């Protein structure tokens, strides 16, 4: 009932002895011999985290396509000046709300700005917000989590209580409060997203450290007098890597969605800067007259986030230590 897949392969062939007669018995049949086992023992070759990560794409087509899409997005957005056909802020009222054409593949917005060019530049914000606050919060979370788990005692208590508080604070609400104080913009989102997500990472890393600390090889390292921070870097950090990578691939799509929502609300990217969320907001009144200019940024977000999520699923299946034994 739980899954059926057909797999055809030949069964093992044996060479059964005939039941009667003695003609088949070969010459020298009774000579005693010593047969050794064939040495081809089946030990799976050792793969470190990175080799495992890359081996995902050998078998998983969806993950491969997702990775290619993400790389394409990054290449196009980083090289925006090379790929964008027009200046994203150059207005030309004659082209106001122009429908898609050969000159403007995705049409123009109300001020006659080329939507394709604006999307290519706008993607920079989405990708930056997707990647950088995630990296910042992951690093922060990993450092604090390892410290809490390894040092223990008061330090652990303090760090984890702060983490509890940050975990309880939704990033969207924090962003709204921060935007009231320092004004809306890139920095607001950056700060809000960096200072919420670290807590989850810290928690997971800490529990990982706590279980790793009991492992023999860490004890062995301690007993021969290796310094604590050396143990942390050399033994514990590499062991946390799978968990960290899994969390990384979970946080990126979430952050991209939060950024676009905040920009849509007017709290995120501010004109003349552009972002996909902001573009949807700016063009939403013209959905009837020129649907492309609203549809395109939404689809761009959707595809990017779907790609990250598919990639995240594949990475988790391969690297999540809790799924390993299966």
């Amino acid at each position, binding site marked *: 009932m739980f899954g059926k897949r057909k797999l055809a392969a030949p069964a093992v062939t044996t060479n059964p002895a005939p039941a009667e007669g003695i003609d088949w018995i070969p010459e020298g049949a009774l000579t005693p011999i010593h047969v050794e086992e064939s040495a081809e023992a089946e030990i799976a070759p050792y793969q470190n985290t990175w080799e495992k990560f890359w081996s995902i794409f050998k078998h998983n087509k969806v993950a491969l396509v997702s990775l290619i899409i993400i790389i394409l997005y990054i290449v196009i957005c980083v090289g925006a000046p090379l790929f964008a056909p027009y200046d994203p802020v150059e207005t030309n009222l004659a082209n106001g709300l122009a429908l898609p054409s050969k000159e403007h593949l995705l049409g123009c917005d109300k001020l006659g700005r080329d939507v394709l060019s604006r999307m290519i530049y706008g993607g920079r914000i989405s990708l930056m917000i997707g990647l950088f606050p995630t990296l910042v919060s992951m690093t922060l979370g990993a450092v604090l989590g390892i410290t809490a788990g390894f040092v223990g005692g008061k330090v652990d208590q303090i760090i984890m209580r702060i983490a509890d508080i940050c975990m*309880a604070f939704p990033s969207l609400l924090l962003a709204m409060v921060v935007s009231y104080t320092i004004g809306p913009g890139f920095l607001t989102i950056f700060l809000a997203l960096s200072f919420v997500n670290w807590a989850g990472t810290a928690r997971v890393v800490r529990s990982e450290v706590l279980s790793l600390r009991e492992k023999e090889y860490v004890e062995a390292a301690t007993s021969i007098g290796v310094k604590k921070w050396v143990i942390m870097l050399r033994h514990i950090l590499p062991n946390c890597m799978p968990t960290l990578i899994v969390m990384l691939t979970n946080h990126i799509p979430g952050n991209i969605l939060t950024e676009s929502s905040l920009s849509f609300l007017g709290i995120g990217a501010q004109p003349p800067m552009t972002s996909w969320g902001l573009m949807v907001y700016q063009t939403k009144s013209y959905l*009837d007259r020129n649907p492309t200019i609203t549809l395109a940024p939404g689809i761009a977000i959707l595809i990017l986030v779907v790609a990250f999520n598919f990639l995240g699923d594949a990475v988790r299946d391969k690297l999540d230590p809790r799924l390993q034994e299966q």
Partner: protein
Amino acid sequence: MVKYIVNRILVTIPIIIAIILIVFLLLQVLPGNPIQVMMKEKVNQAVIDRVTEQMGLNDPLMVRFGRYLWGMLHGDLGHSYKLKRPVTQLIMTAFPNTVKLAITSALVAWIIGIPTGIISAIKKDTLLDRTLMGFSLVGISLPVFWAAMLLQYILGYKLKLLPISGYSTIRHMIMPAIVLGWASSGSIARLTRSSLLGVMKNDYIRTARAKGLVESAVVLRHGLKNSMIPVVTMMAMQFASLLSGAVITESVFGIGGIGQLMVSAISQRDMPLLQSSVVFSTMIIIIGNLVADILYSFLDPKIRTQ
């Protein structure tokens, strides 16, 4: 069990106070006098000074925080600068709308999410499983504001099947509930599937089969109950987050709930309203997580019977 619950509640109280403090500090560190914002420029400086003094805004930060907490305990969440009404009253008017939206979208999410997860698990690795999981993945990847607008445009504007915005009737709630429900059902379906698949690997499932139970009884009675423990926890947390105000959905569909209150407080720079509505929302989420935790311990006999 009781000890566990009391313990959990006690741990939560300092977190709530800490969050009130953080929100308070973040909003108060701003230079400039809020009274000026409230009264516009026409009033002369003497009046501003007098009102500032009256409202106690010259007192030290901690005194003001104490006063805010004290007021909060008595149900006084401050006075809105712009709307000229008590914040408590504003929140109490808005909250029922948020509750309405939360309930309808949670229902949609559960009705879609749980069966999708179960079917996917049973039909693991088939085309149906992949389709359903793809649908769920798109659900969690969807930019809600964009999907909401498209739905509004197609169902409301073009086909005229449903009202475009507002919150007076249940018909108004259908579109917002579909958008939010789909987005939330994705994570429920994914968790239900993985949890059920995990549970079905257990030895006691084999025992149930060995007893002669038909497969549907094995899955629904022995598999599902165990696998629902994490799912119910997630459902409670999700519901709490819906109750705390679906900021985006509320603003796209013009639903006068907590989320919209917060957005308008920001755009109008209405500090007391923003402060208290954010605190209110966060508290709902914290309480929701607490309930989820207690629910979890209630569903798991190992913790319950301790």
